């Protein structure tokens, strides 16, 4: 199953990985070293982040560097902005309805 972006971000280690590679692309080995984790544990986190497209692998020689995919995070923020916009529209509609009801009562 495709990984969910909420689940991906909810984990503190994965957030830390994202913060780190947003500054500089890293190999899995470098991540393991920086977080004092086993290579296996790092691989698990990479898998989750990669599956929801928050990070992108880029081979360089024999190594694979993982980059932060800012576009995916922007998509998420964009979606939230739309969600907010919907609420704003609905609440403005409710303002009008409340005004109408209050006028009818008078």
């Amino acid at each position, binding site marked *: 199953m495709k990984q*969910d*972006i*909420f*689940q991906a*971000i*909810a984990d*503190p280690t994965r*957030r830390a990985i994202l913060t780190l590679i947003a500054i500089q692309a890293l190999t899995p080995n470098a991540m393991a070293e920086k977080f004092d984790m086993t290579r296996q544990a790092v691989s698990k986190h990479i898998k989750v982040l990669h599956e929801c497209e928050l990070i992108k692998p880029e081979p360089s020689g024999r190594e694979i560097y993982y980059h932060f995919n800012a576009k995916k995070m922007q998509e*998420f*923020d*964009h*979606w*939230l*902005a*739309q*969600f*907010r*916009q*919907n*609420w*704003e*529209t*609905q*609440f*403005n*509609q*409710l*303002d*009008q*309805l*409340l*005004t109408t*009801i*209050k006028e009818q009562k008078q």
Partner: protein
Amino acid sequence: MNNDLLFDFNVDKTAKTVYITREFNAGQSLVWDAFTKAELLDQWGAPAPMRAKTKYMNFEVGGRRFYAMVSPDGQERWAVQEFTSITPKTNFKMYNAFADKDENRELPGSEWDYNFSEQNGITKVHITIYNESFERLEKLLEGFKIGFAMTLKNLEDLLASLS
């Protein structure tokens, strides 16, 4: 239009929770009715040009509202709200899940918590939406997409203000 009324929209991504606060220029009783009576909900509960259509609503603990968001071309997106807790005029909680037209729910859904309070004739409504998964939250928006072209300009302004 209502610039003097508070509107707060916050997202805690790590807690998978959306927090919304809005003030309304009306008494608590009336605002409560607008959120809990089908005939009123249907008049504002979907962003234009979408509209809300309630098939039935039993506003009681364990009761349900079965409703649809209807697009201008007549497409319907059904959902079920199940009321899990009600404290008249001050709080209610519900579990919202999308459904087919025969009321079969697609689980998991999301948990909604509404709080109402009044001060000097202004009623404040706090809404908390908890979603286990972003994909489910994403679906909340699926039915709304039609209206977006018109509000793109607003969206740009909003994105500018958020960044």
